[in-house]
């Protein structure tokens, strides 16, 4: 596996509008210069946010990839959780899941009132 190159691609994608356009036109072609496994290519082309998180992609890089695909914040968090359920704990990198109750339950505990109805999956 080549977590470094997965993250390198996402780092460059996040920075470069031309690469975003190229990715939009042909997701497989733009990945050719990177040293990636088939699993990583699948994760980046589907895209499979949960698998990318499982592989160890840093969330600070991954969240922009999710935004590029118009994945809303709450959905982004849920896709990572689903990835852990489907594929197991993060394979490489620093992340460990800690059993956090979720944003809405946490805010309610703090006595915060919500601005709107809680969104599904948060």
């Amino acid at each position, binding site marked *: 596996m080549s977590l470094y190159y997965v993250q390198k691609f996402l780092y460059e994608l996040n920075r470069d509008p031309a690469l975003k356009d190229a990715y939009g036109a042909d997701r497989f072609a733009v990945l050719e210069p990177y040293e990636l496994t088939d699993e990583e290519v699948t994760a980046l082309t589907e895209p499979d946010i949960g698998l990318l*998180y499982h592989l160890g992609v840093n*969330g600070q890089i991954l969240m922009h990839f999710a*935004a590029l695909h118009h994945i809303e914040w709450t959905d982004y968090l849920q896709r990572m959780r689903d990835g852990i359920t489907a594929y197991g704990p993060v394979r490489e990198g620093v992340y460990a899941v800690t059993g956090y109750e979720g944003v809405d339950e946490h805010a309610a505990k703090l006595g915060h009132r919500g601005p709107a109805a809680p969104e599904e999956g948060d």
Partner: protein
Amino acid sequence: MALVYAGVCSHAPGITGRADRADPDVRDRFYAAFDDMRAAIQDAGAEAIVVIAAEHFANFFMDNMPSFAIGMADFYDGPIEDPGWLAIDEFRAPGNRDLSRRLITEIMETVDVAYAEEWRFDHGIAVPLHFLTPAFDLPVIPANINCQGPPLAPLHRAWAFGEALRRAADSVPERIAVIGTGGISHWPATPDSGKINEPWDRDFLDRWCRNDRDALLDYDDTTVYAEAGQGGFEIRTFLAVAAAAAGAPGTVHFYAPIPIFAVGCTVASYEIDPVGPSTH
């Protein structure tokens, strides 16, 4: 002239990007604290603002990762994120290449800082500037401490960076404000996003306000990760500001966990004596 202002604040993208999803009362009190910080920086007569950030793979990556970097350009563009996602319009912030060069030259006497003549601001700088210099009319000197891609510089080196920054600020004729931005405890952009260890944060802020060097350096990344998440690595920016404040006492103007912002939202500052640190 000297360092005339030193403070810290949060920078999480949710502060602007998910503003409409927070409790309005808590959010607006947080924003008001930012407004007060902006006024204090103006009242101090700051002619440039050094923002010590913990950027998130916007400019620096693991192919060539500096522990410490300072921008040396006459302008900086941002945000690098989608403006709609961050709810901050595209901007060009003024820099001051000459001032940067003088600061960097002095800092290099004791710290091997990298310099960058290009720098695109991510939320780590854009969110604080959105509140502190909303018209982008104050020259910005961006600084960065690698808090994202381990191995990370040890905490005592972040402290040394802050000391060097103070020495440099005191060596130039301009009036300098310095802002550190970062978490305290948080688990940003992960499934645990929103988790905040409030007791840990309050203990850290107590050490920060006392400007207790030994207590502030009495952390290690393994424990910080376990208790404060990977976002806790960003305490390096707070430590650098503490070192720059050179023993001055600090005040927390605002602290509250706001889960949808994914951080314990913080605004705090030191009582800086512009004549310089007594240890000189």
